């Protein structure tokens, strides 16, 4: 089965309009408000979030290096981590109430990393469990992720991508209005990443918080939450952050040796807003229109192996945020 983007969109449009009586139709999506959230661990790592607010119906992507606290933030919000301070609320209820109340959890859709259902189930058993627990299951979500075809497969033997699709059904098929996802596109091929993208962008009545590691995921977000060492480093629309942190243009230069790279770095000072060196003989320079002049000047210079010039992208933003190298 192959789905083009348009087919997916057409299939899903009716399914994503909440039906009367569906959970999301009875209440508006909840906003999320974190006044103070602190998690300390033995390793000394602490999550320390203050005054963070997600508007109702907003989609927020959490971005950051490994260990920056993306998963810890999601799990702390869900009450799965021991928190030292947890003040705030989701919708009308406190964070603690969401962790306790079955009625509230019914409105929630969650996808976590490295979780497993009991051993020995088939995909149809998993679907059956979901349907019975929530009392509703949107066939359109199943079909968008092509899960019905795997009904008789053993859940334990699924490939990573197949399993991710079943887990996404568990998180989304009951049309939750609060969605928390930890790297939802992990393992998905292009076809299903696109399908998932359409699914999530179609759930406009839900508040979505997702830990994110790809530009595809980031493009869903109204705002991006950049986390560094357990703290919020920036919180703004991704396009704004690209412009503020990187500028309009990206110039990616490969040089023949590290010494030339150092000389170029010195020469570019003043023309760039931010420099990132993925390798000693490589430079990614970000900035405004001055970069264009520099790009032209570099072409043909003997120390240069290749030059790539273009608009600064979400991928560039993710690289920079994930690596934490922000020194201009």
């Amino acid at each position, binding site marked *: 089965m192959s789905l083009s983007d348009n087919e997916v969109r057409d299939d899903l449009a009716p399914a994503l309009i909440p039906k009367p009586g569906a959970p999301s139709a009875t209440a508006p999506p909840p906003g999320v408000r974190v006044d103070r959230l602190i998690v300390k661990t033995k390793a000394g790592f602490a999550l320390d979030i203050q005054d963070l607010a997600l508007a109702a119906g907003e989609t927020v992507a959490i971005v950051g290096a490994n260990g920056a606290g993306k998963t810890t933030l999601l799990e702390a919000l869900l009450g799965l981590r021991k928190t030292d301070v947890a003040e705030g609320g989701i919708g009308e209820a406190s964070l603690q109430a969401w962790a306790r109340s079955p009625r509230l*959890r019914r409105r929630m859709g969650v996808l976590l990393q490295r979780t497993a259902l009991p051993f*020995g189930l088939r995909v149809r058993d998993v679907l059956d469990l979901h349907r019975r627990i929530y009392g509703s299951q949107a066939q359109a979500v199943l079909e968008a992720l092509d899960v019905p075809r795997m009904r008789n497969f053993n859940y334990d033997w699924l490939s990573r991508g197949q399993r991710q699709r079943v887990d996404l059904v568990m998180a989304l098929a009951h049309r939750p209005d609060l969605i928390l996802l930890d790297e939802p596109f992990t393992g998905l091929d292009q076809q299903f990443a696109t399908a998932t993208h359409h699914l999530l962008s179609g759930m406009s009545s839900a508040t979505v918080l997702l830990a994110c590691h790809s530009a595809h995921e980031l493009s869903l977000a109204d705002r991006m939450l950049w986390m560094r060492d357990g703290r919020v480093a920036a919180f703004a629309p991704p396009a704004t952050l690209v412009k503020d942190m990187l500028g309009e243009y990206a110039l990616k230069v490969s040089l023949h040796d590290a010494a030339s790279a150092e000389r170029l770095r010195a020469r570019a000072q003043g023309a760039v807003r931010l420099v990132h060196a993925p390798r000693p003989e490589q430079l990614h320079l970000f900035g405004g229109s001055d970069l264009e002049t520099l790009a032209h000047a570099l072409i043909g210079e003997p120390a240069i192996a290749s030059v790539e010039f273009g608009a600064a992208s979400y991928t560039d933003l993710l690289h920079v945020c994930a690596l934490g190298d922000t020194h201009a």
Partner: protein
Amino acid sequence: MLSGFDALIRTELRSLMRERVSLFWIFLFPIVFLGMMMIASGSGSTLAPVTIEVVDHDRSDASRDYLAAVGRVFASGDPVSGKLVADSGRGPVTAGHVRVTVPKGFGGAAARGAPVSVSVEYERNGEIGTQVAARVFGPVTIAYNARLAKAAMPVRVEISGRAAPRLIDFSQYLLTGVLVVAMMSAAISSTCVAIATRREQNTFKLMACLPLGPLSYLAALILARVIVLFIASALLLVFGRWVLGIVMPLTLTALVTATVLTCVGAAAMISLGAMMASRISAAPVAIFLSNIVYLGLLMLSDLTIPLRGVPDQIRQWLSYLPTSQLVAGLRSALIQGQDLSHQGGVLLILSAWTVLFLAVARLTFRWHRV
């Protein structure tokens, strides 16, 4: 808000039914073990019948009278049954047999009131049954002498075999013991390993995000094992009773009493399993600990290995183990037909264990690894 709880139980049952190792220990091992032990012990009764070689050199009325008294004791089967066979007395006594020789002049001496002796031979290091049979001759002969002498006995020994608790023979002992062994696999080992595995694989985290929550899921995990425990017990009882032909009066009262005992016993054992798993988040550690506890209880709870060599004081303590209590209750219910009114002590001790295990589990339990 418990819609879907049945789906959780079904999920756990499906998962359990596909765990071959658990199925082996809960269903197959007890049946095979019971069958092997029955073959090894040869027959249902505790001691095999002993052949008594009778060498009667006297051939008088008195000697026939004496041997008839001996025959009556062995025919009663208490303490051991035996078959009397006439023998020439030439050659050594056959291994496993007991030989009694009545000398010439037995009748005459008896008539005169003069002392005379019969001799009893057997293999000193032979089977227990043979040794017991040989020792039977002492009291039988004393009783015979007393009757002969028409003595007014200064001391009368009244042995009144208590009627109520029926004697438990080895096959019944074994079947009830193996019942508890199967229950241990389902309730202690399977619960402990399942909880540790679910924690290791973050299944509790996943369940904590579903409407039913982790506590409902834990309840479903436990209930699924209780269901399997009852199915395994029923199958084992049917196998022992109708395939191996072990005598077991399965009256309605006996079955109701056994069911109540099993429920209370299962609660104690499951609480033990949950307590053991309260901090473990690696399946191999849980399997190791379960095996240690399983082996310990298997050997110390008087399940399939009689604790004859253990000093009384220690045996007394061991009898308070939950599995010892459960098996004692089941034996009195299923074999001796005692109803619930006799099980107060057992139910009380099992409940006390449950409370203790649950209290410790409550204090130490962690849902998640972090």
